[in-house]
């Protein structure tokens, strides 16, 4: 598909150009930091950022914050995603619920789930509980919707097979149905992995004693851009790792979707 737009590119370009891009990025960042802004407390150079990151990691100062964020994110994700999946399977299987609950939940989608954050904190107080709750609620809805959608998609193909097997084989059909819906479920999980970090960080912004989000906000009051950059970098790394992990599991569990004939 891309061939039309880069017909005359030499062989090694696929590797060389991105590398050049990285170099350009670092150089550009450095230039802006030194010549345009000139204030390391507002914009550190790449080197300064890495030094700050390194000192922070080596000093151990960041570990409690990172763990706080991870507990909130992963805890909430595990809770919300699993409940959302279970609820999704249940609702999709019971036609009465499917007709009533699923559209209700769809209608709720228009409102951004971050908006409930202050209310969640009123309910659960300041600290880990409200972070977990916020992430759980957000991921619950995403997983629920994707699971039901996946079950709907699977149902179409399998109704005929069900008839061939006979109505008594519900167990087989249900298991096959769940397997077929896994692609949707994992897509939902990929969205949830990004969403969980977003919600946790927001929770930490508005009321938390610790966490990477809290740290970024606090560092901004101290006008400590290096610290902010360091914390943001760690957040980016964690979010990417989680996303890659989920993508990896997705490709291996739903392997048939990605094999080329």
């Amino acid at each position, binding site marked *: 598909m891309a061939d*039309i737009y880069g017909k005359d590119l030499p062989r090694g370009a696929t590797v060389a150009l991105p590398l050049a891009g990285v170099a350009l990025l670092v150089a550009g960042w450095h230039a802006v930091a030194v010549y345009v802004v000139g204030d390391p407390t507002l914009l550190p150079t790449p080197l300064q950022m890495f030094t700050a990151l390194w000192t922070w990691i080596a000093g151990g100062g960041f570990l409690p914050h990172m763990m706080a964020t991870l507990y909130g994110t992963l805890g909430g994700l595990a809770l919300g995603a699993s409940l959302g999946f279970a609820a999704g399977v249940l609702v999709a299987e019971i036609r009465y619920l499917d007709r009533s609950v699923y559209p209700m939940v769809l209608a709720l989608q228009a409102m951004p789930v971050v908006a409930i954050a202050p209310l969640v904190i009123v309910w659960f107080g300041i600290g880990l509980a409200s972070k977990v709750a916020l992430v759980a609620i957000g991921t619950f809805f995403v997983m629920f919707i994707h699971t039901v959608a996946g079950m709907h998609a699977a149902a179409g193909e399998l109704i005929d097979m069900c008839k061939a097997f006979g109505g008594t084989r519900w167990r087989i059909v249900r298991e096959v149905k769940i397997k077929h819906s896994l692609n949707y479920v994992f897509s939902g999980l990929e969205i949830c992995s990004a969403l969980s970090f977003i919600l946790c960080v927001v929770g930490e912004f508005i009321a938390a004693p610790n966490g990477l989000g809290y740290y*970024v906000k606090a560092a*901004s009051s101290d006008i400590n851009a290096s610290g902010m950059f360091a914390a943001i970098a760690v957040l980016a790394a964690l979010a990417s790792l989680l996303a890659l992990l989920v993508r990896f599991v997705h490709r291996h569990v739903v392997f048939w979707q990605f094999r080329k004939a």
Partner: protein
Amino acid sequence: MTMFANAAGDFLRRLLPIVLLVAVWWALVWALDVPSRLMPSPPEVGRRIYDGLVVTGDLWAHLWSTTEATLLGFLLGGGLAIVVGSTLAMSRTLELLAYPLVVLIQSVPKVSVAPLILLWAGFDIRSTVILVALICFFPIFVGTFVGVRAAPPVLVDLFSTLNAGRFATFLHCNLPHAAGSIFAGMEVGWGFALVGCVVMEFITGLSGAGFLIQNSANNLDAETAVAAMVLLGVLGFIGGALLQQAKRRLVFWEGSARHG
């Protein structure tokens, strides 16, 4: 006559889940005897919305702030995304060169950059607009890039045989083909944009729905908080609906009945 009946029926069918939702909400709050400072009942919220919009009108200023900031940021981010997406899609060289930057932008959870933006741009609406633009950039960028690249190769070949330049091919071939994908990206982008706006309002305390929710929650005034959430939902819905309508009008050839 039947068209009107169909439209009305369609509207009612859409309304039904919301009615059910309100009913379930009401039932749960009543049955579990939830104190209204934690979760108000529908009529309490309804009254608050009515007061806020019709009687005292104190909610309008906040609604307008959020709408304004979100819209501006959406246009800024979306416009940039379409330009950048188109440029990168039409040139593999630029795409490969920009690839690390794109990966970087994608991997950073955009909300975490909010305090940084505040540091640089200050405590006013500019920061909100910037965060919104940043957060809705990516989905629209992806929609544009994928859409432009997805122009049927045979059509691009046709333009080649006519010796059309790259820009002419982009304008007459790739861009219209990408329209559907761009709109899909924008629908997602609108949702993200609202998130960005609300989050920024949380931490700046600037006027807007986010501020309302944050402030009233702190004062245990859950009615106002939930009222603001409902209004946010309406805003989200309206934006989405407008985009869908625009898509249907502009991309009129997609999803149409095929003849023969």
